């Protein structure tokens, strides 16, 4: 059993990658991801991790190198943030389409302009349609657990898709907090050695990445879409196994005091913890408020979401990235679409909060809940607002 220690979350992330017998790491520094790759390069330099650490010249090359490495059959890791993700985005689509089980930690950060190194979810939302599996951590322990989980899911032959583990930049990445790191035997028990299904091998030559003309592109995308959807069962199964072995439980959509809640907050990422504190406070005041928080962003857990929110009259959905001028933020789009498809129509308000490192406080959540209650009572139109934008 691993020991509970205080450490920076980025260091813990690198440590668990080191425990996973990674073969190749290719990365380019960008704040706030840097501590993860710095520590990985130290682990390699000190001989604690037997891997190739490739200090590439850009994020585009980081992901390209990862694609080459994974196609050659190596367990492959990288990490980035924000603009770095934007630069590698082209290749992220290809990594997923080629079904390569790369694991990437993204220390979530806002996108320029204005340039801003602080946390929001613009980068992970840009990755929404790439076909990567995306999980979301709310604290340091979850970062460690989800990275370990990511390798197991990605490499499962029923899945073979890349996995992005999202952790809020600074708010998580630079936080020192208690972490239980698993020991090597525990990791080995949970994570079998990587056995590639297809591989670039002169003894069995294959052509990776052929031209897909109109006759096959549709089928290729259909197959990929099915694979991403089907991955959910394996993701859940791997979490169940994780709970059996480590005792910590994860679900695609998690809830907090939601059973009898009339109003639900819906969040994703580290603000979910603050939201729990807000729920406690409002519950103490006699309000029937609860929380649903997304652990899994892609594949989108529609059924689990419906189960979590179907009893609520009103939802306050918090987004941390904009879809400028669209009907609402990307999380809320998904929520509304899911509910509409099933004939559910609670009152939904969307709050764009915590942009570019702006704090999201307990008080902010209380205000959101009050606004939703007010809107529902008065029949105000549903929509979105950018929280705390000064007039």
């Amino acid at each position, binding site marked *: 059993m691993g020991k509970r220690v205080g450490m*920076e979350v980025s260091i813990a992330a690198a440590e668990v990658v080191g425990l996973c017998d990674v073969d190749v790491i290719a990365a380019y520094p960008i704040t706030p991801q840097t501590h993860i790759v710095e520590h990985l390069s130290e682990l390699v330099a000190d001989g604690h991790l037997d891997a190739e650490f490739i200090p590439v010249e850009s994020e585009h090359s980081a992901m390209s190198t990862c694609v080459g490495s994974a196609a050659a059959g190596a367990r492959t890791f990288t990490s980035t943030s924000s603009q770095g993700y934007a630069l590698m985005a082209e290749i992220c689509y290809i990594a997923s389409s080629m079904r390569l089980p790369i694991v990437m930690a993204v220390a979530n950060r806002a996108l320029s302009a204005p340039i801003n190194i602080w946390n929001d979810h613009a980068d992970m939302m840009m990755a929404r349609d790439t076909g990567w599996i995306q999980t979301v951590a709310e604290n340091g322990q979850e970062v460690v657990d989800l990275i370990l989980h990511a390798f197991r899911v990605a490499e499962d032959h029923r899945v073979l898709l890349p996995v992005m583990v999202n952790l809020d930049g600074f708010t998580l990445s630079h936080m020192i907090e208690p972490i239980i790191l698993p020991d090597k035997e525990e990791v080995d028990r949970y994570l079998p050695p990587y056995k590639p299904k297809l591989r670039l091998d002169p003894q069995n030559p294959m052509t990776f990445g052929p031209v897909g003309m109109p006759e096959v592109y549709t089928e290729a995308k259909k197959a990929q879409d099915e694979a991403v959807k089907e991955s959910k069962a394996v993701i859940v199964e791997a979490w169940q196994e994780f709970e059996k072995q480590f005792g910590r439980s994860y679900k695609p959509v998690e809830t907090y005091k939601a059973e009898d809640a009339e109003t639900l907050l819906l969040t994703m990422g580290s603000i979910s913890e603050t939201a729990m504190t807000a729920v406690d406070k409002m519950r103490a005041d006699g309000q029937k408020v609860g929380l649903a928080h997304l652990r899994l962003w892609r594949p989108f857990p529609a059924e689990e979401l419906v189960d979590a929110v179907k009893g609520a009259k009103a939802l306050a959905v918090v987004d941390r990235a904009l879809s400028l001028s669209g009907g609402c933020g990307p999380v809320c789009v998904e929520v509304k679409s899911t509910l509409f498809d099933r004939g559910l129509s609670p009152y939904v308000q969307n709050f764009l909060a915590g942009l570019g490192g702006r704090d999201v406080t307990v008080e902010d959540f209380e205000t959101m809940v009050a606004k939703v209650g007010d809107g529902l009572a008065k029949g105000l139109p549903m929509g979105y607002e950018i929280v705390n934008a000064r007039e």
Partner: protein
Amino acid sequence: MVEIRFHGRGGQGGVTSAELTALAAIEEGKYAQAFPSFGPERRGAPVMAFVRVSDQQIRTREKVYSPNMVVVLDPTLLEIVDVQAGVPDDGILVVNTKMSVDELRKNAGLTRRLAVVDASTIAIETLRVPITNTTMLGALIKATGVISVDALRGPVQKRFGPIAEKNLQACMRAYEETVVEG
């Protein structure tokens, strides 16, 4: 839950103070968070770092707005930073200064409970450098008891290696010399 704010200058070790405090608390089996003020400030600029310590799991990712405890690592900051901002009435300020409590209260216009220690002198005499991070942890421990010196030992060893013992000496001497307002 207690919240602590450290004021220092970039490069002086304020962030290290915060980290060591959290690590010591975790060593004691408590829950803790430590984080810097994530800014673009570079060496020399006034910076802050924060710590939360609790017996229960900490479920907030808010910034620290109302610290119960404030540690000022550099006396020159008193003139340029409102170190008392957000501190509740029953909060305490632990300040590196050559002044007495009374002098400090008068000169700096501080209204909260005070603890003072000449950490710069202790650091120079013990460590030969005016880096007061571990020294001020001795003062914090004396003034608040938020962590114990014993729990600090491990994290300091790990962080400072060969100079850990000297840092612990400075810490202990500050513990002895800190004057805490009644």
